[in-house]
């Protein structure tokens, strides 16, 4: 595959969601020449632009910060890190202040000043795009990244991508790369996440990086059946019902989600937001208008009508697994490569419990900013390399038989990994059987997936989702206990001897190992 077009930049940022835009902003502010690529469109792509989110913003009051950190430690299975939590809270505080002042984000104003713990997705992301543009960053929309480039010393030196409209490939040679390409929700139709296909993790591992926390990937969101509306906050006011309208005891949005999952294995589940007062109902409409957009169009009054719900897989988007972070500037284990947002592991602040919503949003702003600065500093020391080689495997190497289609692979991955009795309620025999099927699928992809032009990115998405599912289930088999969101039916308790993060990696042959040293004191191990 020869690239038709070659660009040069100090820093290439892959992904234009919150993490990627903060990375581009901070790299450009450091004086770097930046190219930002997005598979879709910077400003409207991904989970944040579509859904909006709370953000882990806590006033700079020691007691409040302490309570915010303490509340997550046990939930996360004691795998989070206090020093990282503290610096993410500090950085988020600073970035949200900047968002209001420079991007002029219209935070609501309460009696004590701006209320900065919630972000409306479309408004946040369109302002991020404008800020990136005003800093002179070159934005390449509809340009999915394919693989990373290395120099002769194994230092990441750029990225290859394909321009969807022309089908032409492009090479961005850069002194450093930030991967902020989101996580993986297996195109389950969770809101805005069809673009989150695990591309970042695949590219990182192909270039030599390792992953961490991939077993924390069993997140499923409640949605009205047949819709993409995976906004779950307001189910705090819901009662859940069986088809005969009897109450489903123990079911709830937070602690009782497993009751919903268990029931869905054999019968439908209905919900009604019947615990909200008229005042709360009015506030909900103001708080999340896109939640009601869907109900209004369906002709459902969610406060008075029963509506059928389902659970949609959110994989590592609301899980916490991703590329291992090796230092405080969000460098990975490969020189020249930085990871941010959902592409990176969020265990540092969440441990093994979902980073969904507010923690992921805080992590995106903080890790994106650090990765952008780190990448700019690395590129400044190094310059832009001239000789590079590609690292991509599946669909990017000659010789494949062209006897399998991406859609075939995708359907098979979804059928294998999405079922609740595989990935939510985890049990060794079913995990092993699913992993075996996925290993076969990886082999078929490697030997049979080939594509040209625009089709390259669909082939790479299929490969990335296959790889992602394998890393998830491999790690889920290896962690022989229940911890955080990882639920092993055969091992329902926490095992003290497994109180460590679990690294996973490999392409044809997978491996896993406890993280040798914990990141401590906000410094690299």
């Amino acid at each position, binding site marked *: 595959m020869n690239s038709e077009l070659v660009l040069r930049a100090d820093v290439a940022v892959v992904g234009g969601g919150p993490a990627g835009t903060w990375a581009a902003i901070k790299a450009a502010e450091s004086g770097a020449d930046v190219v930002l690529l997005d598979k879709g469109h910077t400003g409207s792509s991904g989970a944040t632009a579509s859904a909006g989110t709370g953000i882990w913003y806590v006033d700079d009051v020691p007691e409040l910060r302490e309570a915010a950190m303490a509340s997550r430690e046990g939930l996360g299975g004691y795998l989070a890190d206090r020093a990282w939590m503290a610096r993410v809270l500090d950085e988020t505080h600073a970035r949200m202040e900047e968002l209001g002042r420079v991007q002029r*984000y219209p935070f609501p104003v309460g009696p004590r000043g701006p209320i900065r713990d919630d972000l409306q997705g479309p408004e946040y992301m369109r302002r991020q795009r404008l800020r990136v543009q005003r800093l002179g960053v070159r934005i390449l929309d509809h340009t999915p990244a394919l693989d990373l480039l290395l120099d002769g010393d194994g230092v990441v030196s750029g990225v290859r991508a394909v321009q969807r409209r022309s089908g032409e490939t492009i090479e961005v040679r850069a002194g450093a790369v930030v991967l902020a390409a989101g996580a993986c929700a297996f195109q389950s139709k969770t809101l805005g996440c069809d673009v989150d296909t695990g591309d970042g993790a695949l590219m990182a591992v192909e270039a030599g990086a390792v992953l961490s926390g991939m077993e924390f990937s069993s997140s499923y969101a409640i949605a009205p059946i047949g819709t*993409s509306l995976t906004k779950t906050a307001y189910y705090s006011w819901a009662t859940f019902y069986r088809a005969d309208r009897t109450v489903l005891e123990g079911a709830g949005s937070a602690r009782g989600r497993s009751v919903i999952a268990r029931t869905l294995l054999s019968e439908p589940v209905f919900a009604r937001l019947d615990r909200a007062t008229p005042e709360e109902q009015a506030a909900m409409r103001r708080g*999340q208008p896109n939640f009601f957009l869907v109900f209004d169009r369906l002709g459902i009054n969610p406060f008075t009508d029963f509506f059928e719900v389902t659970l949609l897989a959110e994989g590592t988007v609301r899980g916490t697994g991703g590329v291992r972070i090796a230092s405080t500037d969000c460098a990975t284990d490969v020189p020249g490569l930085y990871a941010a947002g959902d592409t990176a592991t969020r265990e540092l602040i969440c441990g093994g419990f979902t980073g969904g919503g507010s923690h992921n949003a805080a992590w995106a702003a903080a890790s994106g900013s650090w990765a952008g600065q780190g990448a700019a500093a690395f590129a400044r020391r190094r310059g832009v390399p001239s000789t590079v080689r590609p690292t991509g495997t599946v669909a990017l190497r000659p010789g494949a038989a062209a006897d399998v289609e991406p859609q075939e692979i995708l359907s098979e991955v979804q059928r294998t990994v999405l079922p609740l009795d595989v990935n939510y309620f985890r049990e060794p025999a079913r995990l092993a059987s699913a992993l075996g099927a996925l290993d076969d699928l990886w082999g078929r992809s490697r030997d049979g997936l080939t594509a040209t032009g625009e089709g390259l990115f669909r082939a790479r998405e299929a490969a990335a989702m296959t790889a992602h599912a394998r890393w998830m289930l491999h790690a889920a088999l290896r962690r022989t206990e229940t911890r955080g969101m990882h639920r092993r039916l055969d091992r329902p308790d926490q095992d003290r001897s497994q109180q460590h993060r679990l690294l996973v990696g490999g392409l044809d042959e997978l491996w896993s190992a406890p993280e040798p040293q914990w990141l401590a004191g906000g410094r690299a191990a």
Partner: protein
Amino acid sequence: MIELVLAERCIGCDRCIDVCPTQVFDRGADGVPVLARQPDCQTCFQCEAYCPADALFVSPHVVPLPPDSPHRDGGALDRADLLGGYRRELGWGRGRSLGARTAVGPAYPD
């Protein structure tokens, strides 16, 4: 899933073509966008949010609707005041106040 492009409202600005994360639209011969890849639609409503002419309608269903669905009838949607609803809530467009400024939900129950 995106169901309608109302040609009589469309001003041919190409915003939907640009902002759609999954490239559902192509520019038609007459300048009005066509649904070239409807099955790729992820039902994220971004095209509607960005359409300055309220000329698009995204149904909340993640699969295409039958031709006789009211969600494929521009006149019926207009009469039901369902066109441009997302944009109205966001407060995007001249003379509107930004929704983000007043987006404060209720305090969560314990």
